[in-house]
């Protein structure tokens, strides 16, 4: 059985989500600016959202869309707290580069 959503195979949604997830992980690992790392985390969360919506359509239930709503609320909370931490660290260390932050060094 090959499930389709509006004529588009489910596999293609999963491939799109996989590509976006990989790009997000690459961004988290390679970028040094903390704000850009947060933007890459948003990409990862969005790839998860695509999978939720696609399976919600294939299985014929809206539960996945409700969960996407919760993920968005979590992403908003994460962005608020994370960027506040970035601002606090920037005020203290005059940099937002994660390489130069060594406050937790023993």
């Amino acid at each position, binding site marked *: 059985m090959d499930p389709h959503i509006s004529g588009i195979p489910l596999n*293609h949604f999963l491939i799109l989500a996989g590509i976006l997830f990989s790009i*997000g992980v690459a*961004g988290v690992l390679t970028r040094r600016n903390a704000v850009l790392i947060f*933007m890459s985390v948003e990409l990862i969360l969005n790839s998860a959202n695509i999978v939720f919506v696609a399976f919600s359509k294939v299985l*014929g239930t809206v539960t996945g869309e409700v969960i996407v709503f*919760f993920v968005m609320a979590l992403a908003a909370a994460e962005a608020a707290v994370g*960027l506040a931490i970035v601002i606090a660290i920037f005020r203290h260390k005059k940099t937002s580069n994660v390489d130069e932050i060594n406050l937790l060094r023993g």
Partner: protein
Amino acid sequence: MELINLQTFSFYFFATTAVLSALGVILHRNPISAAVLLVLTFFSLAAIYATIGAVFIATMQVLVYAGAIMVLVVFVLMLLSLRLENISKLWDNPIRKLGLFGVVGILLFLIAANISLGVTYPKVSGKGVNANGEYEYVFGQNDSQTNNPNSQPNEFSSKENLSKELNNISSKGQSDSNVVSAKGNVAAVGAVTFLEYLLPFEMISILLLVALVGAVILAKKRKEEEGV
């Protein structure tokens, strides 16, 4: 299968746009340009959600991600005063400005065309979707067609009470007085959220409150720093 199907075309178009702009986010050297490309990614994903009929999620994607979160990110980027000079160069060049408006216009047209076209649904029934595959959430359990086999007996009674209340409020005197249905994507998602995921919803609201209070406290200037 049709040669030119608008839904199929726009899915692959927006998927390509999303992947390319996501690559731009992690490869571009200017952080502000990366943020603008991330907005483009969010809009492409919203268009994909609209293409497959999840209109509520598409709206929330634009409002929450492209609106709220990106405003926060760009605001912080500007507060940290990272390189900004390239954006004003873009607005000084009339040809690039026209091109930008053209791209935005094409994207808006495709999204509007998809939404007005409607969506073909898979013919399965489940929570929030009826046997024809349309978005419908039925309150009350007397309708045998949309009977949900997974529902617990205790939530059964509360739904019945709710449907009676709704009938009393609307007072339309329907023949099938025990059944009220919510049709459409937003209504079905809302019904599932508030009838079956009410506790997680309230927990999310508390989490957001705590996160925002914490963010304000973290970003606030401390008293000893104010004189500096």
